[in-house]
């Protein structure tokens, strides 16, 4: 192998080289800006992380998420293959390209364009096993990338093949980048094939070279094809910052920051910015979003929110207000973008320091009877007293002593206020409730509402007090033999409330209870993928009709296997389903209370 071009230069390399210089400058400036936006404390975190052993985990995560795309594989094998083949294949082409340069033309190491156009600049002098091995690898990875590009092109026209109902709409920058990405690899294939007679090649390039040789003279095509290859590469690199492919470099940055323990603290700080740019517009969140059951509302899904933020377009507030905060998109997002958090932060920015005060709180004196178990109903269970009445029956039967903290009216748990963006007022409520709970001397705080449960677990500082949801508590009573239930002939399906399942990780306890109470049937979407009931307090602006549509869609997934009864463990889900469901709806406490012996 030796060089065949003097000075190792040809004008066709210019478009690519310009693109490469541009993107390197752009990314350096962008990266510097993001780091500059971090607070001093966050910068320290980043520094500490970089020089600790944990950095190896970050390397691993980057390979797994950015190159192999294992998370998308888990969602959908074909979609995963598409992403992995392009990303990993391309990476390997670059990597092996550099190794080739290192081995054969070490004097050209560091020339930006050389590894990319290696085959143009060299000629094969004699066969070696090592040379054939590298050529084989290069052809193999090119084939892998091409197969991924093939699926991508097919997906654009028919998304169903990769298991998606909807794909995202494209903008100009995206289009240029997308079409050049489609062209880059076929052009590379042809460019390398035409020169394969000179530079050598392997199963793919040599074969094509021979086929073309039968009806065309390859030599005359060499220059135009290498030019076209370089031009598309240049176009891709120039369009990159204005396209969704910006997610490729940004995600690396995001993983590095996330693993350092940095989180978003405003809807547009350094971390938020990199989350916004890390979205690959894969569109998984569109199918995930319950709002999208009404097709006009798919425009409010996370991918479009992130896009508005990225382009600084108006209307992002409306988007942030619509979201149910059900977390389904976050659960499924392969980049793990916490778009719910970003939207709540956006809402928070609307409520400035100069706020309205909850002056009356200091006047409230709550006296709670002393007992080990303190029950807090919260606002929602006060609307559905059947839940706490059933729960009390169970508690009495089991001989549990308890007191009712908000018998004469609830001071809200604070989560609805936090979701509305008013953390200041929420903190006041939280502090008030916290005092009451601590003063009560209870050891266990029992809740029947997952909305409360989540906030009590995450935001309340309650040393020595266990916070439990009634599904956990009832299951415990059953396991300890303090209560017993008869198995009925009924079949149930369990609806996982967003804040209990996805939000707090409680999936098994309610199912264990229901399996004791009767037959448990599966829903088509359950556990982490459970569909929001439509009632969520997370959304500020969805109207009743839109919510009802979501409820109906959720019911359709739940009644897939035709159970007799729908069981849930949240007063709000219960209320949302009850009037729309044609079959009986019950809270898990009701089922247990009814079948208790």
């Amino acid at each position, binding site marked *: 192998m030796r060089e065949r071009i003097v000075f190792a230069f040809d004008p066709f390399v210019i478009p690519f080289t310009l693109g490469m210089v541009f993107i390197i400058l752009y990314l350096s400036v962008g990266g510097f800006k993001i780091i500059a936006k971090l607070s001093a404390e966050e910068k320290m975190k980043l520094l500490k992380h970089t020089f600790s052993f944990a950095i190896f985990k970050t390397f691993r995560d980057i390979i797994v998420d950015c190159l192999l795309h294992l998370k998308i594989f888990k969602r959908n094998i074909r979609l995963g293959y598409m992403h992995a083949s392009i990303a990993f294949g391309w990476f390997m082409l670059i990597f092996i390209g550099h190794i080739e340069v290192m081995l054969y033309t070490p004097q050209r190491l560091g020339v930006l364009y050389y590894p990319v156009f290696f085959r143009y600049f060299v000629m094969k002098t004699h066969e070696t096993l090592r040379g054939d091995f590298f050529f084989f690898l290069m052809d193999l990875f090119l084939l892998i990338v091409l197969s991924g590009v093939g699926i991508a092109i097919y997906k654009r026209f028919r998304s169903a093949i990769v298991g998606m109902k909807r794909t995202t709409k494209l903008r100009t920058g995206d289009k240029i980048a997308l079409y050049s990405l489609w062209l880059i690899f076929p052009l590379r294939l042809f460019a390398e094939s035409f020169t394969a007679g000179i530079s050598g090649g392997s199963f793919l390039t040599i074969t094509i070279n021979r086929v073309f040789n039968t009806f065309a003279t390859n030599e005359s095509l060499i220059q135009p094809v290498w030019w076209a290859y370089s031009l598309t590469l240049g176009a891709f690199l120039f369009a990159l910052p204005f396209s969704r492919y910006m997610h490729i470099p940004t995600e690396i940055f995001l993983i590095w920051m996330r693993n350092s323990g940095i989180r978003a603290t405003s809807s547009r700080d350094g971390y938020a910015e990199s989350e916004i740019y890390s979205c690959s517009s894969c569109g998984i969140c569109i199918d995930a979003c319950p709002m999208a059951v009404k097709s006009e509302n798919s425009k409010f899904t996370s991918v479009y929110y992130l896009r508005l933020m990225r382009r600084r377009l108006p209307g992002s507030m409306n988007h942030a207000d619509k979201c149910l905060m059900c977390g389904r998109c976050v659960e499924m997002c392969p980049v793990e973008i916490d778009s719910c958090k970003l939207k709540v932060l956006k809402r928070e920015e609307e409520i400035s320091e100069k706020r309205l005060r909850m002056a009356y709180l200091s006047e409230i004196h709550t006296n709670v009877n002393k007992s080990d178990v303190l029950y807090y109903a919260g606002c929602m269970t006060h*609307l559905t007293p059947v839940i706490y009445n059933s729960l009390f029956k169970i508690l009495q039967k089991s001989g549990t002593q308890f007191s009712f903290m908000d018998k004469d009216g609830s001071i809200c748990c604070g989560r609805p206020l936090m979701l509305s963006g008013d953390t200041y007022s929420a903190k006041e409520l939280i502090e008030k409730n916290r005092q009451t709970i601590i003063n009560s001397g209870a050891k266990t705080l029992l809740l029947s509402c997952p909305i409360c449960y989540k906030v009590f677990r995450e935001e309340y500082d309650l040393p020595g007090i266990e916070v439990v949801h009634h599904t956990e508590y009832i299951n415990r009573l059953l396991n300890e033999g303090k209560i017993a239930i008869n198995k009925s002939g009924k079949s149930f399906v369990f609806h996982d409330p967003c804040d209990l399942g996805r939000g707090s990780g409680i999936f098994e306890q309610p199912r264990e209870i229901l399996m004791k109470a009767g037959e448990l049937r599966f829903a088509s979407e359950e556990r982490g993928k459970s569909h929001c009931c439509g009632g969520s307090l997370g959304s500020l602006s969805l109207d009743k009709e839109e919510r009802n549509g979501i409820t109906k869609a959720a019911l359709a997934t739940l009644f897939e296997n035709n159970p007799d009864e729908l069981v849930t463990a949240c007063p709000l889900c219960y209320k949302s389903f009850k009037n729309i469901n044609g079959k009986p709806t019950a809270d898990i406490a009701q089922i247990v209370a009814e079948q208790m012996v």
Partner: protein
Amino acid sequence: MNRFGYRLSPSSQIDLDVSDNSLFREILAGEPGISTCIACGSCVASCSAGVFDKISFRKALHLLEVGMDTEAVALLEGCMMCGKCTLVCPRGINTRHAIVLIKRKLNKG
């Protein structure tokens, strides 16, 4: 003629020609549902904060409509955003959204 002290307390008469209900109109644009309120009072009866403080969405809406913003806001200040009022409203009005919009307006000053 004796005046019997009728003018001791300020007049609460509302002059629709001069009253400024721009806040109401702004909220109406953001949450058009509020125009369908039938003043049934369900929102007040179910209000969590209503147990502790003078809170009335129904009355606040009415006051806003005639431009008495300060009085209206005083009736919503203690709202805990719990959403019970939205769930019970027979007209399906997104009361909570209206309250958020009012709060935002005021907090922005």
